[in-house]
């Protein structure tokens, strides 16, 4: 019994090590419920949704966050989806904000709660090419609120246009950046294309 108690303590300490928790961390609290089909999808409701993801962190391949304004795992190794930390990545945030379906042929509106762990089938590069029934490429000068700019490696949503010709972009950019609103000049960057969601209702 004594050996059990001593090693029980050692086990608890070991469990705190990163490797032991790798697959049982933030995602253990996420859910896998079906989305809610909605008939409306307005750009300001999308702003509400993306804005609420600020401060919740970044997770490569992720799409699950709570609303406590803190990245629960801010020092995950970049580019490692098995870290299972909090936050979406750039394309996961876009997919959920744009209320898309995991079925690429569906162009309906599917509302995913923040703790619903879903990334969607699209990478930034696929968004850039307008892949999937809900998505399409548009002229960069026409990109407006909650449309997006996408490159092969990143996508960010336009929160609002700004003086000096840049844009306020809400994006999940990198592990150390987290998710937030930044001033960017993607609009004039040749590596970025303008992309948009079909089906806004206002």
């Amino acid at each position: 019994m004594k050996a059990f108690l001593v090693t029980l303590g050692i086990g608890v300490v070991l469990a705190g090590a990163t490797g032991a928790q790798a697959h049982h961390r933030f995602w253990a609290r996420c859910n896998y419920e079906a989305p809610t089909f909605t008939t409306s999808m307005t750009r300001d409701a999308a702003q509400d949704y993306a804005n609420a993801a600020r401060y919740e962190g970044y997770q490569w391949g992720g799409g699950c966050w709570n609303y406590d304004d803190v990245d629960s795992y801010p020092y995950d190794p970049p580019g490692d989806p098995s870290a299972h930390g909090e936050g979406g990545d750039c394309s996961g945030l876009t997919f959920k904000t744009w209320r898309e379906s995991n079925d690429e042929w569906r162009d309906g509106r599917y509302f995913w709660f923040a703790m619903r762990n879903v990334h969607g089938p699209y990478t930034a590069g696929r968004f850039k090419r307008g892949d999937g029934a809900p998505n399409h490429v548009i002229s960069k000068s026409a990109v407006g609120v909650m449309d997006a700019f996408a490159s092969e490696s990143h996508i960010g949503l336009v929160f609002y246009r700004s003086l000096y010709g840049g844009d306020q972009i809400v994006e999940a950019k990198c592990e150390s950046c987290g998710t937030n609103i930044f001033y960017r000049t993607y609009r004039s960057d040749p590596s970025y294309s303008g992309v948009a969601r079909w089906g806004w209702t206002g």
Partner: protein
Amino acid sequence: MRRPTTRSLAGGAAGIAAGILGGIVLGSGSAGGTASPARRAPVEAAHLPPLLTMPGEPITLRYAIVCSPRDDGLPCDGSGDVYLRPGRRGPFRRLALGRGDEAVDGRYFVDVPAQIASSREGFSYYAVLRDEENGDSVTVPSGGEAAPQHSLPLRNAVEVRVGLHAFGSTRARDVRVITAEWGSDVGEAGVEGTRELGFVGPSSFDVDAHGTVTVLDQVNGRLQRWARDGVAATPVDVSGGLADMAVEPDGSVAVLEPPNRSTPAPMLRRFDATGASKGVQRLADRTWAKLADGPDGPVVLQQPSEQWMPAALDRAAQARHGTPGRPLGGGRELLVQRVGAGELRLAEVAGNATVRAWRITSATTLGEVQLAESLGSRIVVVAKTYTEDQGEYVVLVLDRAGVVERFGLSAPQWAEAAPLARFRLAGSSLYRLGSTPSGVFVDRFDLEVAR
């Protein structure tokens, strides 16, 4: 010491296993926090002010009101009032915001009454925006009545038509001032990232009156100065994010950092010439676009206020001293507004008086204004011009008669830098920060006005 028995070994193994399982359960429980969203965040806002308007142009003020997301997926129930007055003095008149059917430019709006919009001195205004669900409110600009936004009519502006941009016909540099290969030794510059996520290099630079080039090598946590007698590195305590930077006249350095995983708000850090900290100040607003060295210290263009604020002051004081234009000293400001796809309006103003103004129109789409600065009696402007798959800079030197000098510049950026930090004007030379797969460089372009 006794030899371990089979029983004690088994007990130990069971203990470790139970401990790990228990630890994981405890860890995952604390990781998730609340499983169901219950956020009631402060109301957020966005607004693009009509800083410079054409006489007779109808003016509508539009706002985005951003609240906590609703579980039914509908937009928030917002409301607001705009307080307007002609010119810069006198009582404000309250107008309730209307709620439109479209949110692409902001759902909430008010048409500025003609008698206010037509004032020769323009008009000033601020808005109080509310989330009706919880009564939370936000004022835009942040200084409210103490520092309202100003809109001025663009009268007697010099018309400049730049026509179609000829991509590929760019000017060659006069001098490559510095070249630094990627690395961490003195004289090299740090780069980080991956092919999948993109690369980030030195995010900003500045040039002093002697031609000394200071590069913010934030990946290596240092400043590097290239002077005539060589290069020197000075460690500074920065987060490593994409930051803007300005060298102050006394050699101090201001570094404007974005929010990050450990600091959720943008911060201005100041260092003396040795790299010792001179203080840290949080910005008044949530987002920044550009840092500049103002007549009384560093000033930052901030959003949602869309005002230049003295960033070394505390947050409330920044908001109280916000101005629509970049302060030039002597009570003058330089107002910059990109309009539509290919128009740029510029005005140097003193109070309500427009000292000089330009209206630039381009047949090729214009992007961001990287630089707009006074050079004696002239103004130097660097703006991006772009198509769907091309992008270059157009440089204009303007005076009261029109264009004095004009040329195109390429946009060599392999590694990302801060958004509006790629050009600096020092003396009568323009400097450009660029990068390639092998390193970073700064090029100099001498302007004709000096010759």
